[in-house]
């Protein structure tokens, strides 16, 4: 206990000394996020300093072992670091799929060689990772993927395509699920392969959504050479890692609903827009819909809190992550439906007048994808029914 208190005061002092003032305020927009990577242009000197300092301590990945550049902290120490950072409202030094996704997978399934090669650059924010799972024809049936690696002895030659890669055109390396055995049953011939996006034969194309521009890209492979030593775990065993990564992603998406609510409360916006009449919103039915939404939001948050309390030290949420993904995304869709109702005729504006370029309408449209990406709501309900409730079939 004494040791922890000492650590807290050390951290506090260190942060005080090293976190630049401008890194202690909330993001003004998405443009303030630091993504890192080979081609990263820091938006400010402070952003660069902050990343460097934190990376040096390994605190960009606080719980990773020190030999891979991580902070080597246990849960309790890491929690203190987090608390102290949020105390001074410090921005995350970097937002990275490397730290959030492929890093943990490598720690769990990767060879020593791959860990040594990839983890330290991730900690330092030098390589920006992107993911390649979905394919145009696979959809929910992810394991039916068709991007194919032909064994050429010491390497693979890959052909096919991936879709829904976030920031694919900005990625330095990709981790992708590729079919390495076309004869095997569909779940058993898949490998998780890492490769440099600059490899010849790789091209990307941006995807326009119904809400407008998006970070998503499609990625094409044409006779692309991939190295065999970049397969994570055993060849043809990629599906296990994929499931691990998906559960991980679902937990993160479930949390998103949570973060959203940090934004301005729906009821406050409604009061501002519609005004009160004897202390009540003048549209009594919209008022009730908003109350139901706020209630369900609290229900979801408290349930995530309870699950965290229950799973305590690092145990995976497992199939419960599907429940949280389902509720988190359905709630976010409802939130935007209600915001559109509150906005009424003004919310329809896409261009012109004071529409802020149709921001609300675009977010509303974008939210429709929440219950599709990362596994559709239908898939999540299937998982809950089968893996939690034990229903047959």
């Amino acid at each position, binding site marked *: 206990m004494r040791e922890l208190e000492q650590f807290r005061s050390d951290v506090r002092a260190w942060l005080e000394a090293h976190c630049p003032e401008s890194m202690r305020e909330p993001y003004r927009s998405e443009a303030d996020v630091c993504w890192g990577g080979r081609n990263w242009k820091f938006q400010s000197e402070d952003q660069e300093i902050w990343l460097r300092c934190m990376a040096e301590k390994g605190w960009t990945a606080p719980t990773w072992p020190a030999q891979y550049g991580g902070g080597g902290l246990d849960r309790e120490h890491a929690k203190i670091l987090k608390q102290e950072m949020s105390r001074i409202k410090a921005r995350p030094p970097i937002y990275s799929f490397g730290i959030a996704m492929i890093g943990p997978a490598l720690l769990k399934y990767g060879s020593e060689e791959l860990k040594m090669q990839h983890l330290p650059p991730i900690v330092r924010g030098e390589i920006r990772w992107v993911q390649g799972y*979905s394919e*145009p024809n696979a*959809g*929910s*049936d992810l394991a*039916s993927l068709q991007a194919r690696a032909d064994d050429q002895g010491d390497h693979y030659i890959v052909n096919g395509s991936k*879709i*829904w890669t976030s920031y694919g055109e900005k990625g330095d390396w990709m981790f992708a699920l590729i079919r390495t055995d076309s004869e095997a049953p569909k779940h058993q011939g898949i490998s998780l392969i890492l490769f440099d996006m600059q490899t010849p034969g790789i091209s990307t194309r941006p*995807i*326009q*959504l*119904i809400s*407008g521009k998006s970070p998503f890209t499609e990625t094409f492979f044409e006779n692309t050479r991939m190295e065999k030593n970049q397969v994570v775990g055993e060849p043809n065993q990629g599906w296990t890692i994929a499931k691990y990564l998906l559960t991980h992603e679902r937990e993160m998406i479930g949390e998103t609903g949570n973060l959203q609510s940090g934004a301005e409360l729906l009821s406050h916006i409604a009061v501002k*827009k*519609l005004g009160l009449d004897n202390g009540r919103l003048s*549209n009594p*039915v*919209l008022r009730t819909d908003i109350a139901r939404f706020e209630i369900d939001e609290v229900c979801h948050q408290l349930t995530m809190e309870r699950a965290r309390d229950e799973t305590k030290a690092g145990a995976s949420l497992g199939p419960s992550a599907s429940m949280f993904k389902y509720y988190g995304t359905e709630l976010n869709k409802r939130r935007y439906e209600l915001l*559109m*109702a509150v*906005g*009424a*005729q*003004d*919310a*329809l*504006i*896409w*261009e*012109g*007048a004071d*529409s802020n370029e*149709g921001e609300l*309408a675009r977010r509303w*449209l974008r939210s*429709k*994808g929440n*219950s*599709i*990406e990362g596994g*559709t*709501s*239908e898939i999540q*309900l299937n998982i809950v029914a089968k893996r939690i409730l034990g229903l047959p079939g």
Partner: protein
Amino acid sequence: MTLVLNEEQLMLKESARDFLQQRAPLSHLRELRDSGNTRGYSPELWSEMADMGWTAILVPEQYGGLEYGYSGLGIVLEESGRTLTPSPLLSTCLMGVTALTTGGSDEQRRKYLPEVAAGSHLLALAVNESSVHAPCSVATAAQASGEGFSLTGRKTAVIDGHNADTLIVSARTRGTEHEADGISLFLVPADHPGIHTERYRVLDTHTAAHMTLDKVEIGPDAVLGELHRGMAVLDPVLNAGAIGQSAELLGVAQEAFERTLGYLKERKQFGVLIGSFQALQHRAAVMFGDIEQCKSIVLKGLRALDKGDENLSEIASLIKAKLSETAHHVTAEAIQMHGGIGMTDEFDIGFFLKRCQILETFLGDHYFHLDRFAGQRGY
């Protein structure tokens, strides 16, 4: 009268569908959008529609129209909902014509209706003043000025406001802001120098405008209907508008549903057609049933308009509320059932969701109409 289309109506439906599918399929809307068109509709297409006689459907024969009634115009609106074809049919040929036939003097009718029937004159309704549809909340002032009036105020969400030749403006001639009595309607030339127009594009490339009126001087002959009793004209116009929007929403919902049903029958996942999943089947079956119900009430509503049913306000709000909720649900389910591809701009299904939201919201959303329905029913 039975709830089925007669032969003549079936022919109109077929010819409307053929025309729209050929001349204005969904790619027409996409082209309009991508070409940066600022009117929100194609004047060339509009003159073809006029040639088809659509602009004249509601106009009485004595003013050069076909006098084919709301049932006829509703058929065309429903079909144009299927192709999401933008046009001033709703603002000019449905609401504008209803305003003139309900409240217009013979002189006013003679002045406007023949040109409207010919497709060469557009009308627009400027009745809202805030983001929420509330036709009785009128602060725009019409002050006596010489023999006529001087209008000052701001009107919002005027559909086709920037395209119109003549605006139908509600303004207050007496009473206080939320009172129905004291609202009067005025026919105002849209190019009047005292009018400032802010055009905007809504989410699917249709357009509308906010309009500021600054001492707009008009003559006494500009009054539409009785002074102070504008709601006696505006109510029927808004009822017709709500039912017309509902006919269009019916087309939107049907097309979105049919495309989705087609997708369920062709898309495979886990080795089977996704249409074989029972959870999707049940959701599809309920959507089918809801749409069948929508067909019945839209038909009923158009008939009620034609015969001048005395409960039109109740009927109109019933229909708009039901169609809004159904089409909203169906177009959102259409995206969900299409999955990722439904989210891409390249694919067409998202346009139905967008158009639905617009039709739902303009002239009162389901909240407005549920409230109005209950009020009309006495509770």
